[in-house]
């Protein structure tokens, strides 16, 4: 009867090495994706923020200098990408904490909450800038908004390229939220 003790209580709980191993792998992947997202959003913010094109000729009626400042939407884009980049740098600390302690649950829910908020901010900035970039390329004859890309060629290329990093950041954020959810459900 005394020796039947462990048999009664069932198997001694293992350290659940396969599950904690997968969780650790998920946390490491989360850290790497955050690093990539930092570079993507930083690149977008810098690419949009350093736009400055001046055309070499002049007439009385049309402006000949284009900067991101001239469009409030692009200012919002630069600000949103900078805020998201700063948040990602700060959340690296929480990500490292999750690598060391793979069984943490409360902090993972907090991380999901903050990641969702930043996803919304980044997507709002990227989509607003995309709408204005589309308008700059194609114009809209029904409301008499003319496309400006035919004159400001390099400005247009820059602002279109800055969108790529931002949309890449959006995909990475969706993956980050999914990874945190997977790590939560596998404890």
């Amino acid at each position: 009867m005394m020796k039947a003790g462990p048999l009664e209580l069932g198997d001694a709980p293992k350290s659940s090495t396969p599950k904690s191993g997968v969780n650790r792998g998920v946390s490491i992947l989360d850290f790497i994706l955050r690093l990539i997202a930092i570079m993507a959003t930083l690149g977008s913010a810098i690419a949009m923020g350093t736009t400055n094109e001046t055309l070499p000729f002049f007439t009385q009626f049309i402006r000949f200098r284009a900067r991101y400042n001239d469009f409030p939407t692009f200012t919002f884009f630069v600000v949103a990408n900078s805020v998201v980049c700063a948040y990602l740098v700060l959340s690296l600390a929480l990500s490292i904490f999750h690598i060391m302690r793979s069984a943490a649950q409360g902090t993972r829910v907090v991380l999901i909450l903050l990641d969702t908020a930043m996803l919304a901010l980044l997507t709002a900035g990227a989509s607003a800038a995309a709408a204005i970039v589309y308008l700059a390329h194609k114009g809209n004859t029904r409301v008499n908004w003319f496309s400006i890309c035919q004159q400001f060629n390099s400005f247009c290329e820059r602002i279109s390229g800055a969108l790529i990093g931002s949309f890449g950041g959006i995909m990475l954020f969706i993956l980050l939220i999914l990874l945190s959810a997977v790590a939560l459900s596998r404890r």
Partner: protein
Amino acid sequence: MADSTTIDVAQGEISRSEAKGKAPLLATTHQVFSTTKAMEREDNKGGYKRGVAIFDFILRLCALTAALAATATMGTTDQTLPFFTQFFQFQASYDDIPTFQFFVIAMAIASGYLVLSMPFSVVGIVRPHAVGPKMLLITFDTVMVALTTAAAGSATAIVYLAHSGNSSANWLAICQQFNDFCQKVSGAVVASFIVVVIFMILVVFSAIGLRKH
């Protein structure tokens, strides 16, 4: 001798069964304690998870109303001004601006998704500890956050342009002529932002429901 052996065997069996009887009694009491504790724990955690799941379902209903309102409001914009000149268009509808077309389509997709995700939400109420429905919901809710925010953000950029214009690009504000159109469109954008906030809350609810203790 046969009797003694059988008696011995029977006694041995009886003693073995007694030993088995005592040990299982202890084991069953242990098990009974542990299972009642586990059931209490499950009921408690099932309790708050069930409450979160019910709130999730109610929020999905609210998001469905807001998404349908946004789609319908944007889809029925059509204003024709009563005068005409040679140079300007005098009809404005959501069709004229591709961003607003994308808005209508995206909000329609969000409404359809919300209807389809109601059964999974109900499963989450009935079985608070099932992981499958919650993982599915959190995946698609995250994608829907991105889609709805994209629609809302791009429509906001165009609405802002319609209200204020842009002097550097020579884009004139059209809201001073198309007043009704502008108001309807702004209302639709506000409804879509409500949908965005609700989706974000739904993601956090699914995350809370995924926790295990």
